[in-house]
Every structure is written in C-alpha cells, then in structure tokens.
C-alpha cells in the first residue's frame, strides 16, 4: 500500500464545552477514493473544515506527504494542493465556465486577462476529466444542469495541480443519470493520481466508487475499512452505533 498523502493523527476540535472531534485519525491515499460517512452531527463537516484550513483543529497532528504541516488558513491548504468542493457549489451563475474555473486566479498579461490562455487550460482540464456533457466553455453557469455545475466545480478544483480533492456530498442534489456522470468523474479524478476524500450519505454511491470507507460516529472514527472487506449492512451499523468494528484500521 502507498504511503498516505494526508494523515490525520488524533485531531480534536471543540466549540466551547461541546467536543465535536474527540481524537480522529484518518488517511487519504493518492489515487484512491476514501469515503467519509457518518450521521448528521458526527463531525464530518468539522473534519473537512479543518483540512481546508477554514476552522483549524485544536489538537492533533496533520501530516502531508509524511511531513507535519500546519493548516491555519485556506491559503496554506491550497498551497499544499488541498482543494474543497463544497456542497453548495460556490459558483457564480452570472459568469461563464472559464471565468468560474479561474475565479480568484486569473491568468493575466500586463494586468489584463489572457482569455485565450484561460479558455485553453479550462478546456484541457475538462477534457482530461473526459467531460463530454459541456458544449461550450463560454456558456454561463446559470444555463447548466446540476450535474454540469458539479462537473465545473470539480474541474475548478483540479485546474491548478490539486493533490487532494475533498468533495462534500457531490451527488446530493442530482438525478440518477447525473449522479452516474459525477461518480465517473470522481473515479477519473482518482485515476489522475489525486487523493479523493468524498463525504456522502448515499451508501450506494460509496460502495460504487470508494476504495476505503471511514466511519465517523459522535466525533470518533469507529471504522476505517477497505470497501471490499465490508458490507452495506455493517457500515449502516457502524454509522448508527448499533455495531462495533473490531478489525484493524487501515
């Protein structure tokens, strides 16, 4: 097994008296999809906010490529190549696909936009993810379907050599066909060597794409398993706390 790209060791986070993460350990491997599952309030959002640098952890160690790193703000996270695709997508409807993908990091020559260069890179990134549903990279995001928007948001995250992409419920609001498209995209993301951490409530999706499953229960990581070594029923048990995982963690 490869060495993990990101390793969280015993991270803790509390808000006042409420302890949300009570010593969580997690590994994300390059080229693999790790699913993070758990019921509402288990601490999934807090865990990824720490990784994104938005809400730093109180205690614990974060290793990136085996080296301890500090994640105190979003800039440090993005410098390491950690990108987050949030559930509510964070795209500007009034801008086109290229403009959205480059938002905040436009290519300029002499202080003015190099639209040709940006258009080329956006197009190449989408193509490298085998995106076939987008007809023109210059259409406004307001004209895109939910699946296409998710596609653009994911493509945006890998535009600048991302090494870890964190997806927050990428299929939550999608129909069947669009879910298939997005899951295929997530797989291709991993095939490119990116470490993918995918939060999902949908165990069907999880079992379809994930290599590993990590289950968070009330702020503790109760199971980290290879997908092939477990069943949907067991995972539901871990999520709800009715079953206890006794095997070794990956």
């Amino acid at each position, binding site marked *: 097994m490869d060495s993990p790209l990101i390793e969280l060791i015993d991270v803790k986070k509390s808000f006042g008296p409420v302890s949300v993460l009570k010593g969580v350990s997690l590994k994300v491997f390059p080229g693999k999809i790790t699913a993070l599952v758990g019921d509402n309030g288990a601490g999934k959002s807090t865990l990824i906010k720490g990784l994104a640098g938005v809400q730093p952890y109180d205690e614990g160690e974060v290793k990136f490529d085996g080296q301890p790193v500090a994640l105190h703000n979003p800039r440090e996270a993005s410098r390491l190549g950690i990108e987050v695709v949030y559930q509510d997508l*964070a795209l500007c409807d009034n801008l086109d696909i290229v403009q959205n993908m480059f938002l905040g990091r*436009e290519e300029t020559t002499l202080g003015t936009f190099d639209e040709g260069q940006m258009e080329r890179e956006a197009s190449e990134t989408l193509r490298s993810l085998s995106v076939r549903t987008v007809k023109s990279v210059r259409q406004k995001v307001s004209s895109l379907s939910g699946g296409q928007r998710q596609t653009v948001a994911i493509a945006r995250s890998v535009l600048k050599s991302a090494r870890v992409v964190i997806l927050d419920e990428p299929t939550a609001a999608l129909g069947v066909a*669009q879910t298939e498209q997005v899951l295929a995209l997530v797989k291709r993301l991993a095939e490119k060597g990116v470490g993918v951490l995918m939060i999902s409530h949908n165990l069907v999706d999880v079992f379809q794409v994930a290599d590993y499953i990590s289950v968070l229960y009330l702020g503790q990581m109760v199971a980290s398993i290879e997908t092939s070594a477990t069943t949907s029923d067991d995972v539901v048990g871990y999520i709800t706390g009715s079953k206890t995982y006794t095997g070794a963690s990956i």
Partner: protein
Amino acid sequence: MSTTTTPQTPAPAPTPASDLIGSGQEGGIRDQVSAYLQRVRGGDMGGLPAIAGFVVLCILFTALSPYFLTERNFANLLTQAATLVMLAMALVFVILLGEIDLSAGVTSGVAMSLFVVLSDPGGLNLNWILALLVSLITGIVIGMFIGFFVARVGIPSFVVTLGLFLGFQGLQLIIIGDGGLYRIQQPEILAIQNSNMPDWAGWVMLVVMIAISLATSLLDRRRRTRAGVPNRTIALMWIRLVVIAVIAGIVIALLNQNRGTGFLAVSGVPIVVPITLFILWLGTFILDRTRFGRYLYAVGGNAEAARRAGIKVVGIKWAAFTVCSFLAVVSGVFSASKVGSVDAAFGRDIVLSGVAAAVVGGVSLFGGRGRLIHGAIGALVIAVITNGLGLLNLPGGVNFLVTGGVLILAATIDAVSRVRSGGSLIRR
C-alpha cells in the same frame, strides 16, 4: 446555449474529433448570428430593449415635432443627457454588486457646493483647478465613507445612503448658505457643456475611437491565436468597426453642421462628449479585462463563491462605492457646467433618474448583470423622453408619467427575460 441545458440525458453523442471543447467562437457569420439570436431568445437581451426603445422614441418624436430632428436639438440632447449618462455609469458600479447609492446626487451636490464656495472670485478665490481637485477628492472620501459602513460594518447600502441623502442636503445647505446660489464663473468649467471642439477634432476623435477598437480586437485575436483557441470570424470585427464608424461618423457630421441661430456659426462636437466616451471606455476596459472588474461581477453574482475563491469581498465593495461617488462628482461637474450655477438643492432630484436609467438600460438591480454602456443607453432613453416631450409643449407632469412608465416597462422586460433564462432551472 440552451441546447445543453436539457437535463437527465446521459452523455450525448461523442464529441467530434476536435481537440478542445467549443467556446462559441467557431463558425462563420451565420453561426455567430444564430448563436446570438439564441442567446437573445434565451433571455440574455442586454441593452437591446433600450436601444430599440431609443430608436422608437426618436422616430416618434421626429414624427410629432419638427424641431426634434434638427442639428441644434441633437447637440442639445447630448449635453442634456451628459449629466445623467455619467451618473448612471457611476451607479452601475454599485448596482452590479446588488447595492444602491441613493446619495450619489447629493454627493455631487456637496462636492460642487465646495467647489463654488472655494473658487468664488468674490470670496475664497481658490484656483479653479485646486477647487476641482478638492471636490473630486471629496467624492472619493464620501465613497470610502459609504463603503466603510456597507462593506465593513455591514449596514444595507439602501439605509446608509438614504441617511446620507438626508444628511448631505443639510451639509450642502450649510456650505452654500440659506437660499444661496453661486454662479459658475470659470470659463473652463462652463466650456465642458457649452463649447464645442473644432470640426477637425471631431474627426480625429472618430479615428482614435476606431484605432483603439481595432487595436484591442487585434490584440485579443493574437492572444487567442497564441493560446491555440479559435477566434471569431474576422468579418465580425470588420462589421463591428464599420457600424461604429458609420454611426459615430453620422453623429459627428451632424454636430459639425452650423447650428447657430444668429451671426455666429456654432458647430463641432460638444467637449463633454469625448470626456464621457473616454470614461466609458476606461470603465468598460476595467470591468471586462481586469481583476477588479471580474471580481465586481463575481461578488454581485455570488458573494459567498467569490469569498471562497479568495476574493476580498470587503475591498471590492469598498472600491465600487468609491468609484461610484467619484464619477457622481464628475456628473456634478457636467451638471454645474450645463446649468451655470450651484444652489442648495443641486443634485437632489437626479439620483432616482440615474437608477432608472441603469435599469432601463438593462442593468439588473439584483447585481451581477449589466454593462457600463447599458447605463449610458438607459440615460439616453430617459433624456430623449424629457427632450422630446419638452418640444411637444406638453404639461410637465406628462414627462414624469412617461418616464415612470418606461421604467416599469423596462423592469418588466428584465423580469420576463429572467424567467425565460432561469425558467429551465426552476423546472429542474
């Protein structure tokens, strides 16, 4: 555009063997025109309704009044409109954010009151250039003040600027003095609206406009070619240049006719026109091609997305209000030049017309949609209503009624086109 929005279809037929995903720039004139028509049908009409309205109104007034389509009235219309055009362009910067500046008019009032009091030959007699600088800087300071309360403190801009709208009327009264009225005595200021460029300078202006337009088009094409992405067919560029040349050429030729009534020949493009065009060009350049402009649209479209993309939302808002107040003072200079005096009520009534102009031109009050030139076109529509109805000798009330009706009509067109462009989203 709308063809790809059909949801729930699995991946469509494999893309043709081209290397890149399309960009809407491929194909000849026919493809481009049909793509444009498709965008318009999809609800992305931009300034089209306002341009159509302007043309219809011009035809209507030409038919109703023998004075409307005369060289003299034409020049008059441009100088009458200049103040509103500049104010509407100022407001576009904040309206793009989904904000509003109700104090833009009185801001120009305060700044111009300072100008006349400082430069009054019978009083402080400050050099007019210094006095003008003071008023422009006053505009910047006021803009930063508004920006502070809106962006930093987080008070809705409607409330902040409403407060200033009330407060600045008092400030203006204090600066000018009760019932006071100062005449503008500097020939340089009066010249902006009342003097014309020599005839040849009008043609030079046309050549410069075409040269700049050609240069930026060619530069864009070179960058796109270097990046290896398709360019629009070059014929479109020539068509655009010819259209600009013909329309601007007709306008300049008309303005270069003698429109004097007495012995003195009056001709040439009013000085205010090149100033306005320059600010329009510069502002459009900044909005379309620089980070500040792009981020303005991004914040107006989805402030949270902009923040997550690392854009300093507070700074962008701050800057937008500063630009707005600064340009509002420029519009105040135009107004003072046209009217020839500044009193305690200067600038009080114009701001809502400015907002109306922006909306009529196709700038969305919800933010994120619209261009600077839309504000300018909307202002021309409102100015042509005022001008044309004035020539018809109708009672003054009719003017307000018609302007209000046009505003609501424009807002309706905007809302309907929104439903059409967003309709597919809602259904999904």
